[in-house]
């Protein structure tokens, strides 16, 4: 069972509140939800929509074939009518025209009735979330305006809901992060906001310096003084940080970077999604130095991988990049089960005032003072690469790849990051194996073995040129000819993938 509901309106009308109320009610009933957010860079007006999918089984994606539309304005109906199933329903704004700002609450109430949830649960939720008399009355009015269409009985699943951004923030808090620095940039900003709001209670510092250059350099300064530091940004801001990432490379001061991609080049399409910054994450920064690049595919992995990033950075004095994108960062997922117990982060280096410490952007000798001595240059460069060998060994303790689907299938799909949800939903019940690459640097040796075992290799990426495909060809010598690539700023839906996978079935 899967129900897809499109909720649309002008920016500022409150479509997210509808998704929130409904998904919270559904998840407390044991249903899995997935909420996709589609919005242009407009603060008031324009056209925003969410697609809320509800299922009795695990889901990690949305669909564009719609069971129902909640339209907060007439434009929503105009734009999305064609996506509605023949027997689909529309909740229009017309009958609630007297409710003002409570229009969204009334429409949420109407949807709840359609889904077959009891009125008292709705009222309880509205009281908890909003708590005004007007909102409660609006919810009642909405509820009474519709007929029940589905009958979603209570299930026994214990569901947690989270966006990728909340998960990265939680992962950082689980790692006992001390400082988060960021300059606002979509789609990395939700991590800044989430952490900023929790900083006083949880006792860590969140600060927004003058730009990303300051963010990265201050991050290294704080790390030098013994703080566990994360910095966050999207592609353009990451470009500005690049020189300081190179400073990380020579000073080996631990640094975790959260990079949430959006379509580029330049300003690109700021509020939409793409996996176009893998090359950037792998190579940004002049000179040769080790780094770790990890791409979680869902919030649960985001929490665990963020913790691993802190662990590895602080253990090896390394740069760890957590690579996400708008789709993972801003979509709301549900999951069941606990996350891995957070790893303890230990700091082993010298700090002032306890001991003298010198960090140098110049190649330096053991005292931390600059040198041009060719022997020391080689010694330091070799030490950096030896450190990378140690990092590689340590990473083997973690889940660097995951194999999903039919484990015996000869059809091997390879992908990474936020495409995970749609790929899993697409291949359910089909003859495909899905290799999800989580660690992009270092890469797992298992990948080549899996590729060699397969008859058909299929690459799925949310970008134009197949950046993971290139990386795999470089590392394994195997080129993937079958490529399913999407670069219109929108994430994959399972149906789109299924359609393209037909030729291998």
């Amino acid at each position, binding site marked *: 069972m899967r129900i897809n509901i499109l909720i649309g309106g002008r920016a500022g009308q409150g479509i997210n509140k509808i998704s929130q109320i409904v998904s919270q009610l559904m998840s407390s009933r044991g249903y899995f939800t997935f909420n996709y957010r589609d919005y242009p860079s407009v603060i008031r007006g324009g056209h925003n929509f969410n697609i809320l999918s509800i299922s009795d089984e695990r889901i990690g994606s949305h669909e564009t074939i719609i069971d129902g539309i909640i339209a907060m304005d007439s434009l929503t109906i105009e734009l999305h009518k064609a996506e509605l199933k023949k027997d689909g329903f529309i909740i229009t704004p017309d009958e609630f025209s007297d409710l003002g700002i409570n229009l969204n609450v009334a429409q949420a109430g109407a949807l709840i009735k359609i889904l077959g949830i009891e009125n008292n649960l709705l009222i309880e939720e509205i009281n908890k979330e909003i708590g005004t008399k007007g909102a409660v009355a609006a919810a009642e009015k909405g509820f009474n305006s519709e007929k029940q269409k589905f009958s979603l009985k209570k299930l026994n699943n214990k569901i947690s809901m989270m966006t990728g951004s909340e998960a990265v923030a939680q992962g950082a808090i689980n790692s006992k992060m001390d400082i988060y620095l960021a300059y606002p940039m979509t789609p990395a900003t939700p991590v800044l906001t989430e952490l900023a709001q929790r900083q006083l209670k949880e006792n860590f510092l969140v600060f927004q310096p003058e730009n990303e250059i300051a963010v990265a350099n201050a991050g290294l300064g704080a790390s030098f003084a013994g703080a566990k530091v994360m910095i966050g940004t999207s592609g353009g801001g990451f470009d500005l940080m690049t020189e300081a990432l190179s400073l990380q490379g020579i000073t080996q001061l631990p640094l975790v970077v959260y990079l949430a991609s959006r379509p580029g080049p330049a300003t690109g399409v700021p509020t939409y999604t793409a996996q176009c910054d893998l090359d950037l994450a792998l190579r940004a920064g002049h000179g040769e130095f080790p780094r770790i690049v990890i791409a979680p595919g869902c919030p649960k992995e985001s929490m665990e991988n963020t913790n691993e990033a802190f662990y590895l950075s602080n253990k090896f004095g390394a740069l760890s990049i957590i690579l996400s994108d708008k789709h993972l960062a801003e979509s709301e997922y549900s999951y069941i089960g606990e996350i891995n117990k957070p790893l303890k982060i230990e700091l082993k280096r010298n700090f*002032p*005032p306890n001991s003298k410490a010198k*960090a140098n952007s110049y190649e330096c000798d053991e005292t931390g003072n600059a040198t041009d001595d060719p022997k020391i240059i080689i010694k330091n460069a070799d030490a950096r690469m030896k450190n990378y060998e140690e990092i590689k060994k340590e990473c083997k303790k973690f889940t660097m790849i995951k194999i999903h689907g039919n484990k015996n299938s000869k059809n091997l799909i390879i992908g990474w990051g936020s495409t995970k949800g749609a790929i899993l939903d697409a291949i359910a019940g089909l003859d495909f194996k899905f290799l999800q690459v989580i660690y992009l640097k270092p890469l797992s040796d298992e990948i080549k073995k899996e590729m060699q075992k397969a008859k058909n290799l299929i690459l799925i990426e949310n970008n134009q040129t197949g950046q993971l495909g290139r990386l795999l060809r470089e590392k394994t010598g195997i080129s993937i000819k079958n490529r399913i690539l999407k670069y219109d700023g929108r994430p994959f839906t399972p149906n789109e993938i299924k359609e393209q996978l037909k030729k291998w079935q």
Partner: protein
Amino acid sequence: MAITRELRTNNKITWCPGCPNFAILESTARALLNLIKQGYKKEDFVMVAGIGCHAKIFDYLDISGINGLHGRSLPTAMGIKMGNPNLSVFAFAGDGDTYAEGMEHFIHACRFNSNMTLFVHDNQSFSLTTGQPTPTSQLGFKSKALPFPNPQAPINPLRIALSAGASFVARCNSKDIAGTAEIMEKAIKHNGFSFVEIIQDCLIFNQDMIARNELMYKLPETSRFVSKKSNLDGAQEPKVLDKKRSLDEAMALAKEWDYNLGKGKIALGVFFQENKKTFEEHWPQLTNLMKSKIGWKDLKR
């Protein structure tokens, strides 16, 4: 002159013979030793350097620090304060470093008022890159990188710092080792962001400006006016008036010199000082670390 040996590494100094950076190194050592006598701990000193001739000082001082990137001394220093607000942090930077590559950080550091210090070694030229104009190079500065004498008028960093809200603004002459040491000491002791412009000759790439030494004069006592009154013998003795120099008065003093030659007087000393809440005092997380005298690494959570 006796050279201070304490707080120095054994590294061979590679500044040009006669470079005023030697004097700045000596002033720094004296200022820090004086502070240690007053209870500061050597272990708490953390320096940051940018990139340029000035930055070699990093190799010669035997204290903790980061030799960072060109233009980025200030955010690096502020990061150190965020990481442990109990450390005494000061940044060395050049004029090209601070005002060209890093101008945004300079303005915001004045605005944030983190309790740290910036020493700008201002020789009015990029010298480690063999003589190109910086934002404080005088009109007419000659460079291999210019087809004609520098047509751009220099900026006035003191005016910028005062406008941007710096809570301590001073200028000194590197040739006056004792005077420079005294101002450095005051700057580090000031609770808030301190900006010290150290005027420095470049004997190789900007010899024209050496003549500016003739224009310099010392301002009276830190933040107070001094008037003269006759004592019983009829001799003049200074009387300290209990009146702070206002921002407008400081600005007027800063305007006296436009960083070109031949015009105006060059005031030396503390132009302006005020007490206001520091960056660290605004954030309870950092205030708590200061109260417990620890950095994040020693915080039990």
